[in-house]
């Protein structure tokens, strides 16, 4: 659906359904450089099973106009504006990677709006190496290669895609190729600079589900351990066969975790 947020065009995939105030809502927030279609199978499931779905394109991503937002806090505020625009009081929020940091910060800033949050492929702090940041700053192809390779389990090039006939590396590279110059760098800087994670964790009131890939090279599961310990109402699932891109590498396990959590 087309939206106007801060007087700029924005897009949220809604699984071809209008928002129904009587239904619960699931908000999907993508990671650095990606867009709503990264949640294809999972968002579609909830959209056809009694939920409102808002799979967002953050500013400067997918179909949403730029400029890109520069901090996790700004992004969390933007998510709240999307809910307000749609008159949604409270929602389940699912975030992946950078989107998981946004979901965490959102739930801390707007506890009344966060019914439950699911954090997929998260680490805190989410530090980004100097080499990766520098390559992204230069819009060098090597940045997109790093994003692609580290976003998947090392086994991905030697394994089949659960989605028949699709090549995960090629798909990620094609999505990144559509980004405007500088957007990936802005996203990575926001992840790298985010320092409010433990404070946000301490303020959380809603239940939290962690879904982590055992073979995650971008945000290894050990990077989430401190957050998991800090959040009282949390549970954690490790998906043995997956790297960072759990929605693509282990789509059923990811979906099943969300179904169990959101009921």
């Amino acid at each position: 659906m087309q939206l106007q947020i801060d007087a700029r065009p924005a897009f949220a995939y809604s699984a071809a359904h209008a928002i129904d105030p009587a239904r619960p809502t699931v908000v999907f927030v993508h990671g650095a450089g990606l867009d709503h279609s990264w949640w294809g199978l999972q968002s579609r499931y909830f959209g056809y099973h009694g939920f409102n779905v808002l799979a967002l394109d953050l500013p400067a991503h997918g179909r949403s106009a730029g400029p890109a937002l520069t901090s996790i806090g700004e992004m969390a505020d933007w998510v709240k504006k999307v809910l307000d625009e749609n008159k949604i009081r409270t929602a389940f929020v699912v975030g992946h990677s950078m989107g998981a940091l946004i979901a965490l910060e959102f739930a801390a800033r707007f506890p009344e709006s966060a019914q439950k949050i699911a954090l997929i492929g998260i680490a805190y702090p989410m530090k980004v190496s100097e080499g990766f940041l520098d390559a992204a700053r230069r819009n060098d192809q090597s940045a997109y290669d790093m994003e692609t390779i580290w976003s998947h389990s090392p086994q991905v090039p030697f394994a089949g895609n659960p989605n028949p006939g699709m090549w995960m590396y090629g798909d990620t590279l094609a999505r990144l190729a559509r980004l405007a110059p500088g957007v990936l760098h802005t996203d990575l800087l926001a992840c790298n600079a985010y320092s409010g994670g433990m404070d946000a964790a301490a303020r959380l009131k809603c239940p939290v589900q962690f879904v982590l890939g055992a073979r995650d090279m971008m945000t290894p599961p050990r990077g989430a351990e401190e957050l998991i310990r800090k959040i009282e109402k949390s549970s954690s699932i490790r998906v043995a066969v997956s790297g960072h891109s759990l929605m693509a590498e282990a789509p059923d396990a990811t979906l099943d975790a969300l179904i169990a959590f959101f009921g």
Partner: protein
Amino acid sequence: MAGPKYPGFDTLALHAGQTVDPVTGARAVPIYQTTSYVFRDTAHAASLFNMERAGHVYSRISNPTVAVLEERIAALEGGVGAIATASGQAALHLAIATLMDAGSHIVASAALYGGSHNLLGYTLKRFGIETTFVSPRNTDEFRQALKPNTRLLFGETLGNPGLDVLDIRAVAKIAHEAGLPLLVDATFTTPYLMKPFELGADLLYHSATKFLGGHGIAIGGVLVDSGRFDWEKSGKFAQLTAPYAGFHDMDFEEESGTRAFLLRARREGLRDFGACMAPMTAFHILQGIETLHLRMPRHVESTRKIVGFLAEHSAVDSVMYPELESHPDHKLAKQLLPRGCGAVFSFDIKGGREAGRRFIESLRVFSHLANVGDAKSLVIHPASTTHYRMADADLKKAGIGPGTIRLSIGLEDAADLIQDLERSLAVAAKAR
């Protein structure tokens, strides 16, 4: 900082797309010779049908063995994914049927495989899709032929049979400036010799029957999408960017972004036209791909020897191979095909049609048949076989004369092949 590296071509040719069978541990790709797949329960069935879960439902739409081939080719080409089809022609048809309706227009190179020429020039016309054929050597003709209803630019990486080298960069630029995709037939080059997506092509297909299989035992095709063409931005492809009543009002681009083309091609094209690949065929073609990186250099090496031999032979009028300075696309070939210009080429024998007939009938190692890209060396006379339906004017436009002979160089000892050619040229010369 040294970044992470992708696996090399040779490694992908052997491993991409295959998860070792978790039940048996089978190292080879199993042949899933099944039409259908048992659902876990009714909810699982519904989720598969509504595309909420990944998996297989019916082998016309997808099959685990075929999916390995699709993913492997996509990996070798650098695409987002692929769809294997019953033949190369089925892949071309699937691409066109996914992108356009009656009333659409294609601008295509005139130097095409005869079957493709027939499809575009005659068959699709009956369904309201018109094609303008242009010279692949004059890229401006592509631009000049564009119409408001043009939806696709199309050519072969190496044209048939004169090996016209398509200037993919230039044609892609013309296509993209017009908000249109470029489709190429990459059969003659394979991903080993050229990566068309890196040059700007948006879609490509192979007749997998040829070098990908390499054994001449299976007919198949593969259609690959780069995922780089922005259908939404183009604004010319409502087939992918507007709700489609034929598939539950799905907006394919909104639903899947970079995967929109393949999503519709699979979910509508395979469902309705049904030109899918059989699992046994996929298995056969996979066996070929596992040695593609070993076979192609040998094909090219032997071809160079034979081209050199023929170019110097007194019974030969001309040899059309882009590595020869005499070929009109020599310079372009050096840029686009540094690993070689493939193993299919043509030459004109002195003495015309009768000399050609005697030459072909004298060969002992070369097989006279209608195919290319086999491990065995092949020969054919295009004017009387592959291109026989074409009018003389079109034949000339495609660079074919009455004495044109097409060779496909296989993996035999090159000295034996040269001996076979030398003896047969001598027989043909006696007819003059």
